[in-house]
């Protein structure tokens, strides 16, 4: 089976982003960019399915600026077979990405699309669900375990209060939660090999997709700062402060 894995280039999760002083956005010039952590888990899961003999080909896709090629090379180094970059400088919102992915699903006909559950920049948690709805495919979001058996895929998903299990017919859309797996480290020989793997470049226009943003960001601000706290010397002082100063304990 063929698996399609969309990956996103985002500000590295270790970077503490700063809001621009004019309120137009966050300052991402010259900060380290990486693959969205949930997408690494998605690629890892696809590679494990290939190693288990379930998948035959893994296609990694990224939508965005030309530098997203680096993210795709990382996906190829983890074990994807080939990559597609949908190159655009337009700000892509989840609905636009879902429409691009729909066009690619129609072209590539994968049996499984595995996405991260959310990107750590916009924190939207929408693209996988939107893709499933647009393609009329069943979805299993927030997956913590994926088992392929014959004609169906069984997914355990993390929900509030515990876990639930769904069984989906193919083709299907799955989004990964953190505990699905631990992505492998990329080795130098694999990075070298990844440079030789095919990377095709398309544009949203070539796919016939309108990517005009629907949401307008009016302003980006710092969150309210917490005031500086105090260090207390001992437990007795802590209890006294909580009772008499903060008044959160009686």
């Amino acid at each position, binding site marked *: 089976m063929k698996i399609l894995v969309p990956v996103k280039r985002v500000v590295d999760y270790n970077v503490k982003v700063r809001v621009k002083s004019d309120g137009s956005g966050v300052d991402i010039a010259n900060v380290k960019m990486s693959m969205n952590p949930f997408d690494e888990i998605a690629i890892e899961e696809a590679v494990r399915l290939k190693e288990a003999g379930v998948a035959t080909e893994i296609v990694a896709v990224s939508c965005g600026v030309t530098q997203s090629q680096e993210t795709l090379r990382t996906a190829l180094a983890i074990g994807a077979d080939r990559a597609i970059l949908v190159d655009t400088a337009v700000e892509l919102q989840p609905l636009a990405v879902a429409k691009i992915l729909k066009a690619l699903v129609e072209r590539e006909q994968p049996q499984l699309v595995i996405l991260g559950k959310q990107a750590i920049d916009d924190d*939207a948690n929408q693209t996988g669900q939107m893709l499933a709805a647009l393609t009329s495919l069943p979805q299993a979001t927030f997956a913590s375990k994926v088992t392929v058996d014959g004609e169906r895929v069984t997914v355990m998903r993390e929900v509030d209060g515990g876990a639930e299990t769904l069984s989906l017919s193919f083709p299907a859309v799955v989004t990964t939660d953190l505990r699905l797996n631990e992505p492998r480290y990329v080795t130098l020989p694999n990075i070298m090999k990844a440079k030789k793997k095919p990377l095709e470049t398309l544009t949203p226009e070539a796919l016939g997709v309108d990517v005009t943003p629907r949401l307008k960001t009016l302003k*980006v601000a710092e969150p309210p700062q917490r005031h500086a706290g105090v260090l207390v010397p001992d437990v007795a002082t802590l209890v006294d402060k*909580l009772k008499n100063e*903060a008044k*959160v304990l009686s």
Partner: protein
Amino acid sequence: MTILLIAEHDNHELKGATFPTLTAARQISQAGGGDVHVLIAGHDARAVADAAAQLPGVTKVLLADAPQLGEGLAENVEATVLTIASAYGHIVLPATAYGKNVAPRIAARLDVAQLSDITAVVDANTFERPIYAGAAIATVQSADPVKVVTVRGTAFDPSPASGAQATVETIDAAADVGAVRFVGRELTKLDRPELTSATIVVSGGRGLGSGENYQRVLEPLADRLGAALGASRAAVDAGFAPNDSQVGQTGKIVAPQLYVAVGISGAIQHLAGMKDSKVIVAINKDPEAPIFSVADYGLSADLFEAVPALVASLG
């Protein structure tokens, strides 16, 4: 245009997340968004619809009752919502696992953008939402004819039942989409308050060292305080605590009156889930831990001595 609130419930009662979502819907209503209707999509869920009819500011409850809606599968809920969506200007859901699963499907099928996890209503088209794990707050405006919105529960006060009496109208459920089958559910047994609605939360991190210590050290404190138990991602990944107790960007977002962080260093990911708590207490033996930069009261001490001493001094 009217506002449609899609309620979260378990076919017996409304889930806690529905109440702050209603508060957000009423704020949109006051900003010119129109009446608030509530949809109960479920199976044998009449009692839930009757309960929803008593909520303040709700003018009508729609009940779609069918076996294929019993487990809240996104495909079937979406299909049913689409049969009535054209009458609404806003479709509002809680930003829980349920709401996050369903809302983007509805938005995509209506060909509109979705606003995730809003923390404030500016006007009927404009909302605030956190981005970059809460490191920035974006004010976002939608020009779409329908606004599909999910609401961060901790950012709005819950609306209590008011004894109002809206009409309950039955609507047809869309046919079963098939393709996906519900297999089963394992819920973590809780004898404590639910994490996202608790007024006090006691959370443990890697500093506890083991699952046994997590229980032995934190449970007496949580019992004494009537608190919910939370955990950092490190503690969950190490198997000290169940998955659904994780507080953070990728887990639950909490904002209790009192948050006690025990043996938690305070990574950005964790802070995103708890920094709106009213009072934060940190107990950590590393005085340089980042958690102290957000804590109102910090105690730099060995948690294995400090937490039992804290329980003892609370009496």
